[in-house]
């Protein structure tokens, strides 16, 4: 299973990405987050602590989800990126588009 979901006490939905977020599983992530939004979730935190790599399709999926959540006054934030993944966001300048926090705990406190 590529993705795990849990709701924290403050109502933030935390989505864990296990392995990689790439062309073959990006739709699964999108569907899970959109289902959560349909169910009323407005604060979504994607946890990349257990993620090896992300490709451009995965980045596109995150951009798409961020847009859709914004349309319903929600927000998508990211946490737990390793050095490689941070480099990926910096290369594509997407580090300026997302709120990125080092640890999930910190992200939950600030959300």
């Amino acid at each position, binding site marked *: 299973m590529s993705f795990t979901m849990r709701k924290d006490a403050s109502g933030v939905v935390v989505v864990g990405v296990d392995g990689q977020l790439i062309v073959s599983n990006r739709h699964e992530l999108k569907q899970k987050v959109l289902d959560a939004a349909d169910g009323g979730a407005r604060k979504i935190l994607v946890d990349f602590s257990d993620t090896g790599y992300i490709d451009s399709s995965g980045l596109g999926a995150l*951009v798409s989800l961020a847009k859709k959540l914004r349309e319903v006054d929600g927000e998508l934030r990211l946490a737990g990126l390793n050095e490689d993944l941070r480099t990926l966001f910096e290369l*594509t300048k997407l580090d300026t588009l997302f709120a990125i926090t080092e640890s999930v705990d910190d992200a939950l406190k600030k959300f």
Partner: protein
Amino acid sequence: MTVPLRLAVRRHDVSLPEPARTALRISVRLPSDLEVVEEAVDVVARHCVAEGLTVRRARFNLRVALCEALANAILYGNAENAAKHVHVHITVTEPHFLVEVQDEGAGFDPAAFADVSLPHDLEALGGRGLFLIRQLVDDVYLNERGNGICMVLRRA
């Protein structure tokens, strides 16, 4: 549950002109199915690490760049046609790893690849794949027909 291997992998020695001398060649053939991308990237990365590519470059640079190239080959090159395959050849030489990805499609204009940059709109959903390949590997070449890409990773 054991997942059946859907890739055909071959390893053989090849002779190259000086100064590369002899080299090892690993060939992988995969169907035009996005579901095999992860497995193919994993197989290629493991072979490259076994031949001396640093774990970090295999884990990140190679994996992301190869993932992009395979997705392009399957989605745009072969248009997900089940009758077509994607061919990956890794040539291991003393200084380099050459990773070639070729599809069976008509190819695209290599000139379009000459000036690859990020989309102006940060919120664009696509358009980052070729840019990432260029950023993550040391050199990139397209074949004349535009259906094959060769990505060069130096050992160091």
